């Protein structure tokens, strides 16, 4: 199943609910792929400080997805470019997969994909859930 995150964080609860849904699905051992597109790419921008708007910042918890077997988070390149964002604006975390744990090197948490790649991925799913 594919989770699509379309919305920016903090302006509504949609983004946080999307993360909760992914965690729930992963906890039930579903084969989960997670992608960020449109304003959803803002969820992964580093340096978010919500202390002045009175909202708890849920986005650091996105990094915990790796511990639920979700693998790399896919981010659409075209969505980044249109919004003035680039790879270096996003969280710079790595994940340890079963394969890499044995070999040593870790893989980046985030993998950029093109719109065409993401479109093809959508077509390959049994279930697509959008937030």
């Amino acid at each position, binding site marked *: 199943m594919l989770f699509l995150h*379309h*919305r*920016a*964080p*903090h*302006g*509504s609860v949609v983004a946080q609910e999307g993360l909760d849904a992914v965690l729930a699905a992963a906890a039930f051992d579903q084969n989960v792929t997670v992608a960020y597109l*449109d*304003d959803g790419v*803002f969820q992964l*921008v*580093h*340096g*978010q*400080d*919500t*202390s*002045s*708007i009175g*909202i708890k*910042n849920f986005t650091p918890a996105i990094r915990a997805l790796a511990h639920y077997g979700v693998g790399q988070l896919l981010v659409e390149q075209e969505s980044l470019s*249109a*919004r*003035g*964002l680039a790879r270096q*604006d996003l969280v710079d975390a790595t994940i340890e997969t079963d394969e890499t744990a044995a070999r040593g090197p870790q893989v980046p948490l985030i993998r950029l994909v093109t719109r065409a790649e993401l479109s093809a991925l959508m077509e390959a799913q049994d279930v697509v859930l959008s937030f």
Partner: protein
Amino acid sequence: MATLHTVNQSPYGRTALARCLNYIQPGAGLLLMEDGVLAALTGGAWADRLGGVDGVEIFALGPDLAARGIAIGAVAPNIRIVDYAGFVKLAVEYDRVQSWL
């Protein structure tokens, strides 16, 4: 007779900012707040579009920028950053506040 327009939605997902720009008059103010501040990010399509708006002072709410990881240096140069006190001051200085939903 000047109006302060406020936009609290992302222009990439919603149409509030586009509709606001269809109506805004020279001398008006435009305050970007909540997800509206996403329009302020340099290099983005909407920051470019706001750069072409003449005669309108454009502001973005600092706490909302910080919450979204948008650094002061990444805000388009024609946009002034204000804090909550600055927001109140603007609301008082302009004749009216019109929020675009």
